[in-house]
């Protein structure tokens, strides 16, 4: 039994246990404990790399994403423990639903980790599928009109996405089969990569289009993003945090795995232009849409679309530097956006509303919480000295050198998005405090922990981390 099995077994067992626990307070503690254990287990591969098996794989690419996923899942479980107590107190959630909620939370973490460590294309697909099922249940948890509509839309759109991805997977097997023979090997990622150069390029291209559109739906790329704002806004806030912080990353990771196969085949069409187009359109669309949002969680959900657009654009440009920027941005966005959602979760609980217009002057009424939100927004807007600035700067400089016109469009998108963030931040954070003041205990440790990491990365990236990003950036081609 290798460490990967342990990493997967902890959330699996925790999910089973949590489904049986009646007390939600105890369940919240078990949830935190399981997440902490998973985090520790996820660090072990750094010391001793487990062997690649036909089904599970830890390589340079996913090792850091596994750790990042376990980390965000862990801090979110801390935030969630505090968050749900308040939701139960005000009667928005009943303890019966929370049993579902906690079990589904761990099941979701399991699917994320399985998708990351899967060495088999079929397993990857099943994991992403499982992630959809578990999160649908959580998005619809409040059972309001809006929550059910959001869950329905999420399920239908992502169901179609998943279906297209499966078709792409079948085509990928069809491309591999003549070269590698029938059977499991032709679906094993670590075996596919060395042979990818001999695959039928036309079939590879077709497969990639289906995979990009399919998994791209889960990344929230325009024009398939419609589920994302609703799912973020109507579900419990810890779910918004893990959707933005984990799910989008993992979906993008799956696309990148296939991109590597295409990059290894000299005759296949370059996957870059497709990804650049989708990334750029997501960025531009989302940054303009930011101005019309009245709901605070919806607002930040559009910001997630914007950032996934930037990341997809960076990977689409390709090359060591752009890939480096993309990887860095993936990490920074995941940390920053989940920190913002932690703060937003408490804000909407205290004010009793998610309407931006009803939330004013947070820094005077709730100084610590208010400033946490301000710092988060400043970070996500891409201002120095935070890490997001560095990755966005890298994306821009590398694309200005290679495609000035595209870079100008990215810059325009970034500035438009920046304007919206500053505009809304002013109202939210400064001026006279308004809105309700419901008592709520806040857990801001997770938010500040994330922001400190993002700040540190912006000032000083440790050497080992840099060399690692560089190795992976080279792998991505």
């Amino acid at each position, binding site marked *: 039994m290798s460490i990967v099995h342990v990493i997967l077994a902890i959330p699996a067992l925790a999910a089973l246990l949590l489904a049986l626990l009646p007390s939600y307070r105890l369940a919240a503690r078990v949830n935190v404990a399981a997440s902490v254990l998973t985090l520790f287990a996820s660090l072990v591969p750094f010391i001793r790399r487990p062997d690649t098996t036909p089904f599970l794989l830890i390589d340079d690419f996913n090792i850091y994403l596994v750790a990042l996923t376990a980390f965000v899942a862990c801090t979110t479980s801390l935030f969630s423990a505090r968050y749900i107590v308040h939701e139960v107190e005000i009667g928005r959630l009943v303890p019966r639903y929370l049993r579902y909620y906690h079990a589904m939370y761990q099941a979701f973490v399991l699917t994320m980790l399985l998708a990351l460590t899967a060495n*088999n294309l*079929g*397993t990857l*697909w*099943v994991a992403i*599928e499982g992630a959809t*099922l578990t999160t*649908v*249940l959580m998005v*619809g948890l409040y*059972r*309001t*009109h*809006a929550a*059910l*509509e*959001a*869950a*329905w839309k999420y*399920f*239908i759109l992502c*169901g*179609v996405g998943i*279906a*297209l991805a*499966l*078709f792409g*997977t*079948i085509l990928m*097997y*069809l491309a591999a*089969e*003549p070269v590698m023979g*029938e*059977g*499991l090997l032709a*679906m094993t990622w670590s075996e596919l990569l060395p042979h990818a150069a001999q695959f*039928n390029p*036309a*079939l590879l*291209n*077709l497969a990639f289009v289906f995979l990009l559109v399919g998994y791209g739906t889960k990344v929230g790329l325009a024009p398939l993003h419609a589920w994302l704002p*609703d799912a973020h*806004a*109507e579900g419990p806030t810890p779910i918004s945090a893990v959707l933005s912080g984990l799910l989008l990353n993992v979906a993008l990771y799956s696309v990148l795995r296939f991109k590597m196969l295409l990059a290894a085949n000299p005759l296949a069409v370059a996957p870059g232009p497709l990804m650049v187009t989708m990334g750029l359109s997501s960025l531009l669309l989302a940054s303009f849409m930011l101005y019309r*949002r*009245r*709901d605070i969680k*919806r607002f930040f959900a559009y910001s997630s679309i914007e950032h996934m657009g930037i990341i997809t654009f960076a990977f689409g440009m390709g090359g060591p530097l752009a890939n480096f920027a993309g990887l860095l941005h993936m990490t920074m966005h995941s940390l920053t956006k989940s920190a913002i959602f932690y703060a937003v979760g408490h804000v909407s609980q205290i004010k009793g509303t998610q*309407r931006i217009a009803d939330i004013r002057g947070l820094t005077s009424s709730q100084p610590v919480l208010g400033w946490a939100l301000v710092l988060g927004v400043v970070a996500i807007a891409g201002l120095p000295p935070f890490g997001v600035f560095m990755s966005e700067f890298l994306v821009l400089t590398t694309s200005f050198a290679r495609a000035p016109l595209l870079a100008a469009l990215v810059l325009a998108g970034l500035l438009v998005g920046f304007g919206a963030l500053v505009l809304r931040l002013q109202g939210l954070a400064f001026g006279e405090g308004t809105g309700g003041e419901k008592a709520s205990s806040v857990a801001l440790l997770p938010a500040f922990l994330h922001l400190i990491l993002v700040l540190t990365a912006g000032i000083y990236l440790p050497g080992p981390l840099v060399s690692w990003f560089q190795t992976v950036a080279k792998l991505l081609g």
Partner: protein
Amino acid sequence: MPVLANLTYDTAHLLDAGMLVLSFALLYQRRLFGVLKIYAMQAVLLAAAAAWQAHAQDAPQLYITAATALVFKGAVIPIALHRIIVRLDIHRAIETALGIGPTLVVGVALVSLSILLVLPVTAASAALTRESLASALSIVLLGLLMMITRRNAVSQVVGFMSLENGLILAAVGVKGMPLVVELSIAFEVMVAFIIFGIFFFHIRERFDTLDVHDIERFRGERS
């Protein structure tokens, strides 16, 4: 040339074509019970196609796929949906979707598109695989079209499930595809169905209608 020169190929082709015709029937059928019947027939054909592929490829594990398709999609799911429709009293609902003519024209265009897409890139594969894959992609796209043109939640779900029929047809048509995939699909259909079931009851509780158009009035972005 003898009439049955290539029985394997001809039978598979016939079954694929049958499924495709039923996909078209789904597109123009307005009554919900009718939609369910056609879906069940398509599932039975899928089971036959999977069984035939199991025989032709000498891959006994595909019989399992055929059996699950026959039992779950051919019987259990249509019967359960039938009950839901009766209980919710929506069987009289005549849907107002895109007109029949335009829908069928788009459908034909989609079939041509998938043939044009699949046949050139699979030139190296066996003829059986190529034809199956082209039909499968057509069924997938027609299922998608049905989901787009229908407003009633039940028929959207049927569109989704018919799309999955196409996917399974593709998976069984590809020679030697590992069992993992078929099992996962069968599993997924079950889970998806449970989830859909839960959804129906919630939607019923809250909205008293299954018309997705009505749900969309409750968009969260209201001021």
